């Protein structure tokens, strides 16, 4: 089985520092999580149980019996502790360490070989779905060699060569079942056009992550199957900084929201291959607030609001960090022009967009994208006064209080209500316009069966079947 995709820099398969989507796929097949978000619901992983104490300040994780790493050594609670220490360290895991900031490091410990105790500095009743299932691949204790890493997952690394890709082979000792495909090779093909050509000419079996324009040309081609998934989709966004003029004025934010013709955006930018957004991330995941009314397009009211606030010109920074964002700004400019508002577009190269975070945080209006993740995972990272990358600078006290309650309330139903409330506050007062979701698109040959896209747009190699 050969999977072609974006390879980035290749290099180590380090769960703390994932360098490309292809590495991410391989890492996901080599390392296991205590539990996994799967296709929306939480699925079991290597943990037999993960339970909080009464006020959710101490979590106890018990491993399944008889788990083995690829080198034959047992998976122990000490490895869980080492993995948390690795993933929670900003030096070894710059991207994910933030997820672990509530851990009481001094008292983190393994009680016995199968049981780890994770004490927290504050109650976090949401830790299973927000942290354990997202930020905890189990890494073997000791200095790990991430070029050819040892994990406990359904596949083990046979070779890892940046130029050629990664070869993983089936782990016949895996605890859950015997995967159908014996060997999976990730093939670096960075150009999406070359990816689909490689699939069509039989050089690869799955072309992973394709832009809408590339697959549109393949509609009606019976030799390939196209899959579009909202799990792993990109939330396509106009981001308004609520602390900077003119977007510190709620009426201006409202006027921009009303100007956006979301369906036209999807039709023209995503070539009709997308889902309507309602200014929230997490569509399709548990905890998404689908009770809020769908935002509508009302140019007349938008015009009145712009006029009342003396706005006839706006500036936006646009960048194709997800394909189509610059086009979305152009479509918005055309929509605003019909009501006499000029939108000046300042285009920034995609590779420079995230390179200057202070600039990002002080830009009044810009295009943006977020990976579509559960609201409980997304919101604490990007919204509210404790978020590190709060691009809209939205941090109302009532939002913080709702989010805190959504994290600390022990009762799951009550916690959900707080999470829905936090989303409603952000929807009402925030600066995020999610106009649509650009789906995670992949294509595969008819020989491949059972391709399931899970959260983060990953596919699990152990599910795949390859017919002769």
């Amino acid at each position, binding site marked *: 089985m050969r999977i072609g995709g974006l390879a980035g820099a290749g290099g180590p398969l380090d769960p703390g520092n994932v*360098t490309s989507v292809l590495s991410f796929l391989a890492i996901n097949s080599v390392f296991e999580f205590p539990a996994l978000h799967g296709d929306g619901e939480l699925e079991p992983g290597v943990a037999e149980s993960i339970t909080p104490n009464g006020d959710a300040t101490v979590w106890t994780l018990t491993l399944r019996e008889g788990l083995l790493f690829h080198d034959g050594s047992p998976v122990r609670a000490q490895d869980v502790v080492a993995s948390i220490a690795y993933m929670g360290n900003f030096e070894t895991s*710059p991207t994910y360490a933030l997820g672990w900031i509530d851990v009481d490091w001094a008292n983190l410990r393994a009680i016995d070989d199968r049981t780890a105790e994770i004490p927290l500095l504050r109650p976090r009743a949401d830790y299973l779905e927000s942290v354990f299932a997202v930020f905890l691949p189990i890494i073997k204790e000791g200095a790990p060699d991430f070029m050819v890493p040892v994990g406990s997952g359904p596949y083990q690394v046979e070779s890892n060569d940046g130029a050629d*890709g990664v070869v993983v082979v089936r782990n016949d000792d895996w605890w859950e079942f015997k995967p159908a495909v014996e060997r999976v090779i990730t093939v670096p*093909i*960075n150009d999406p056009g070359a990816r689909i050509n490689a699939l069509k000419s039989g050089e690869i079996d799955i072309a992973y992550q394709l832009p809408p324009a590339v697959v549109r040309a393949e509609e009606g081609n019976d030799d390939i199957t196209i899959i579009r998934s909202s799990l792993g989709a990109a939330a396509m966004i106009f981001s308004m900084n609520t602390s900077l003029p003119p977007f510190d004025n709620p009426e201006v934010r409202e006027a921009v929201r009303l100007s956006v013709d979301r369906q036209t955006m999807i039709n023209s930018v995503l070539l009709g291959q997308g889902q309507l957004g309602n200014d929230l991330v997490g569509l399709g995941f548990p905890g998404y607030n689908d009770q809020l009314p769908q935002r509508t397009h009302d140019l007349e009211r938008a015009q009145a609001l712009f006029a009342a606030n003396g706005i006839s010109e706006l500036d936006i920074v646009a960048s194709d960090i997800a394909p189509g964002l610059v086009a979305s700004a152009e479509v918005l400019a055309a929509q605003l022009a019909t009501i006499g508002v000029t939108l000046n577009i300042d285009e920034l190269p995609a590779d420079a967009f995230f390179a*200057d975070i202070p600039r990002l945080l002080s830009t009044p209006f810009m295009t943006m994208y977020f990976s579509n993740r559960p609201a409980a995972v997304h919101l604490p990272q990007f919204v509210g006064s404790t978020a590190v990358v709060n691009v809209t600078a939205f941090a109302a006290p009532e939002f913080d209080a709702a989010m805190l309650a959504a994290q600390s309330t022990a009762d799951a139903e009550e916690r959900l209500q707080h999470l829905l409330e936090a989303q409603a506050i952000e929807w009402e007062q925030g600066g995020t316009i999610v106009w649509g979701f650009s789906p995670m698109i992949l294509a595969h040959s008819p020989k491949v069966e059972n391709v399931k896209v899970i959260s983060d747009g990953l596919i699990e190699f152990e599910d795949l079947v390859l017919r002769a």
Partner: protein
Amino acid sequence: MSSGLTYAAMRMASAIATLLVVSVVLFAAVDLLPGDPAQQMLGVNATPERVEEVRRQLNLDDPAPVRYGRWMWSLLQGDLGESVRTGGPVEQIVARPALNTAVLLVAAFGAIVAVALVLAALSGVREGSRLSNLVSLCALGALSVPEFIVAGILIAVVGLELGWLPAVSLVPIGGTPLDRPVILVLPVVSLAIVGGAFGARLIRAAVADVARMPHVEAARLSGVPEGRVILRHIVPGAIPPTAQVLAFLVPFLVGGAVVIERIFAYPGLGSLLVDRVSLRDAPVIEAVGLLQASAVILAFQAADVVGFLASPSRRTAA
């Protein structure tokens, strides 16, 4: 010291000086790329403190001349540094793609030379003939089409529609392109069509210039057979300008390979360069840039030497 050795020493000195200038320009260009490499490395969630720490580790706060000096010093000791993305040694990252690109370029260069020389000789010897005009016209046509369009057409027709050749050029795991030479055909043809046309036109002009010279006309008027005129009088005179034209094809090929490698997913230096520019992996970008510049400089030096060896004054002296 003989004139030949003096000449070689002068060429060597000029090559080193050119390479030094290129290294300064390259370093400055990479330095001017927008964005902070430390932030790029750590991602959007990194704390400002951690970004600052990595900036210090990478010496990014030092003035540019100091960093350039440090880079050159390591380079002179044969150390290309480490990738800021993966931490791997740059030599290792660059080695396989460099070999793959070398294979592609040598094959493409060979094809171009063969095509260009045959066409140019056929059309340049008898300027104004029907064959000469036809070759000129075809060459002009091929020249007007960028190589990525040529590649796209070849992929669509030969690769996907007819299925005769692979539509992408994936190198076998752990192997080289020569383990599966068929993957080289379409990229080489894409480069050779445009490069060959370009070369043919220039070489044809050079050959025509020589063919118009009085001594060639005199030989023809004296009844020397045409084959002998070409071999004895035209070819030797056309060697120095032809060597220069072929040298000019090298930068064209190096640049063209960047596009072609990406379209065919061929794992060469061009693909590596494009990927690492977007990742701001300065040590790798600089190493690839230097390798490409060295290839171009070497080609021009070789052309000069060939021109020197073939020059009539030298042949007379010998």
